[in-house]
């Protein structure tokens, strides 16, 4: 009965959950910058959720340190389906300058499939918005496939 | 003569309460309860007393028209009250024994596990 409504809404109300897997905070700040009046992703329905249970899109920043690996994976697992995993910045994608460090066990795609990866150190807000918009499309597809 | 009774009764009650308020020894508190009880009993008996009345039981002498009884009801009440008082004292003392076994003291200031 509501299938169409729900499918259409899936792309319009993506809630983000942000995980810092050992990031330098650069990407984190950029992500928060998206909420400022200048970029205002809330107009697209984005919202930062307080808990993974509410999230649709998990945004991971940082090169996945040994300490954070289990916690990141556990939190990602706790997000209800359908979900999209987005990596933000170069770190989770390739470990960036931290590659080879004894304490870095990334990149993240060794452990979970990544849907969208936004490159850059740090990515520009426009790039992030673009990536997130792509993520919402994937979200809609996942919802539709169900 | 009755005035003395009343004063005595009130004095006993007050002494009893005094003991319950001031004495920290729980045995003394129980004694206080007893004294209050005696005061009350005295008061009740005094209430039923009529100056010059005879005992409210079967008498061997002749009953003349001028004779009257003391009121029998308060005496019955007093009997009941005495019985109850004795029971209260017995029960309280039994509890004191058990409390002493548990706490090793009779000081009410130290028997205060239930507070707050």
């Amino acid at each position, binding site marked *: 009965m509501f299938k169409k409504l729900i499918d259409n809404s899936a792309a319009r109300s993506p809630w983000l959950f942000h995980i810092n897997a050992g990031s330098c905070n650069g990407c984190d700040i950029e992500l928060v910058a998206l909420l400022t009046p200048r970029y205002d992703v809330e107009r697209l329905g984005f919202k930062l959720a307080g808990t993974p249970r509410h999230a649709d899109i998990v945004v991971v920043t940082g090169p996945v340190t040994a300490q954070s690996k289990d916690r*990141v994976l556990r939190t990602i*697992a706790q997000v209800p389906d359908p979900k999209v995993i987005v990596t933000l910045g170069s770190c989770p994608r390739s470990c960036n300058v931290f590659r080879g460090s004894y304490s870095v066990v990334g990149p993240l795609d060794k452990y979970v499939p990544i849907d969208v990866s936004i490159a850059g150190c740090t990515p520009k807000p426009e790039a992030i918005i673009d990536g997130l918009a792509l993520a919402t499309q994937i979200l809609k597809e996942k919802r539709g496939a169900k | 003569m009755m005035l003395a009774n009343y004063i005595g009764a009130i004095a006993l009650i007050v002494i009893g309460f005094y003991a319950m308020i001031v*004495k920290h020894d729980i045995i003394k508190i129980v004694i206080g309860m007893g004294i209050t009880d005696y005061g009350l009993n005295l008061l009740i008996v005094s209430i039923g007393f009529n100056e010059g009345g005879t005992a409210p039981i079967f008498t061997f002498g002749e009953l003349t028209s001028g004779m009257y009884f003391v009121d029998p009801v308060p005496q019955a009440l007093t009997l009941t009250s005495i019985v109850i008082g004795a029971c209260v004292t017995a029960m309280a003392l039994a509890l004191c024994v058990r*409390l002493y076994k548990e706490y090793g003291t009779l000081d*009410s*200031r130290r028997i205060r596990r*239930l507070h*707050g």
Partner: protein
Amino acid sequence: MTYEIFKHFPVLAIMCYFVGAFIVTLAGKRRMLRNVVAGAVMLISLSLLLSLVVPVMVDGQIITYWMGNWEPVEGYAIGIAIEVDALSLFFGLLVAIAVALAGFYSFRYITQDDANGPFFTLFLMLSGGVMGIVLSGDLFNIYVMLEVMTFAAVGLTAFRSWNPNAREAAFKYLVVGSIGSTCVLLGTALVYAQCHTLNLAQISAMLPGNMNPTMVFAFAMLFTGFGCKSFMFPFQPIAADAHGAAPSSVSVLISGVFTKTGVYGIIRVSYFLFRTMGLTSMQTLLVFIGCVSMFVCVTMALNQHDFKRLLAFHSISQIGYILTALGLCSALGIAGGLYHAINHTLFKGLLFLTAGAVLYATGTTYLEKLGGLARKMPQTAALFMVGAFSISGIPPFNGFASKWMIYQATYEKAAETGSIGYALVTVVCVVTSVLTLASFIKVGQSVFFGQLPLEYENVKETPLSMRIPMWIMAALCFLTGLFPDLMVEYLLGPATAAVLDTARYIDAAMGAGYAEIVANSTAYLAEPVLVFAGTWDPVSWLLLFVIVMCAVTLVSLAGRRSRGALTLADDAKHATFFGGEEAEFSHVASGDLFWGFKHNLRGYLNFMSRAHSGITNDYVVWGVCAMAVITVYCFIFM
């Protein structure tokens, strides 16, 4: 229709309990026999009282029974009367129901105690004592029954004598309770000195209007004495100790029934014997005491760490509601107060029984140690929620119906007297209600919800024989809340009329027309007409609820294909969210709840906590001070 046969029922109802108490002793260690006798006795008594509902409540008869057929001679009552009007029957029913349910619960509950032989002897003695008080028509009889009751209650409080708390509580209870008994006996003696009779009806014909200083003193004494038995402020600490330490089924009786005898006594003394309730000063006194009991006890309850002790403070808080309502001396107030009395017996009984179930299953009632029991004991948790919603006045349960009547009664009183003080009383009532809710959320969070401590992994639901009485109580909580109209029509209305119409009570005992000849004023203290300021229709609410529920269910069924799946599992995905950490045992315990509230009222809360020092002498001081203050107040304002 003739009611001759019913004359014997009240006295049989009382005797049943006492006879049963002795037979149970003879049964010795044969548990089955003991249970059968006790069960039979409780049921017989209950059915005897139920059979009186039609003649007394519906047809408005007053049943008088003279022990040994010593009927009044020339307007003087010599014999001992048993007199059952609607008010007595109301309290009698309440007693019989609570006793029967608590008794059936105890069959299984006390098997955990090794020396449980004397339990039912004391239990039935207590029940008989209470029943004797509410049905008796004789002041000294009331005193004797009061003592029997207190005695059995002290014995039952100390029943779990392996528990030092129980002995301590019993001792304090005995000592402070003796103040109350002393007061009652003193008052009785003084009344006898004045009237030369102990019959309630005759006293209430002779005394009103003939107040001299002795009688004012006697009134103050009786009022304090019955107040002590109802554990009103400042007698509340012993109630907390005693209810908390006694076995749960006994707590049901002490809190649900025992305290009601105090309330009953206060009604009889101030509405009947002395008819002082018409005085503004008297109303103010009772309402003030009620409000203080209500507020002090509910804030004390918020501070507690023991399930049963918390419940104990709540019962005094609810008694505060009842006293407040009765102090208004308006028909709605009396009806609301009586309504709350029966509701309090039901929901507090239910809550104490759930506390007993928790104790039975886990061996503790300490809030900080428990948690997550709803998963292991789902029925008990559901029952607890019914009780909690009832006591905190969530519609449509019974607590709300009676509280709602009390709010209206207080506010109407405010309008009638033009005094804003009564409006503040309404506010205190509402605030108390929300604080009650808070403390039950605290219990829910720390006992039934949250995480389950490891040591309770093997806890089982309570046996069926314990759950049945609880379910009956829960059903009664729901039904009495759902049909306030029927309650008013068949129970509260007649009882309220009986409270206000003393002349009929007097006439029934002493012969028709006696009241008019002797009594100085037979006018009503207030018109026995219930005036509601608002409306509340629980049945319609429930209907609307069901309709909307059906609609929501239909919608969700229609959309079930497109809805997300519901998943249950025991893996990392379904583990509790801990910010990414592995799920571990972490439980927000009761002491940490409501910090924002406690922080703001810390001065008051700490003071009250220190004041409940646990020292017997302090409690005696409070009691004696109350006695003195009430006496002085009565002398000044009467």
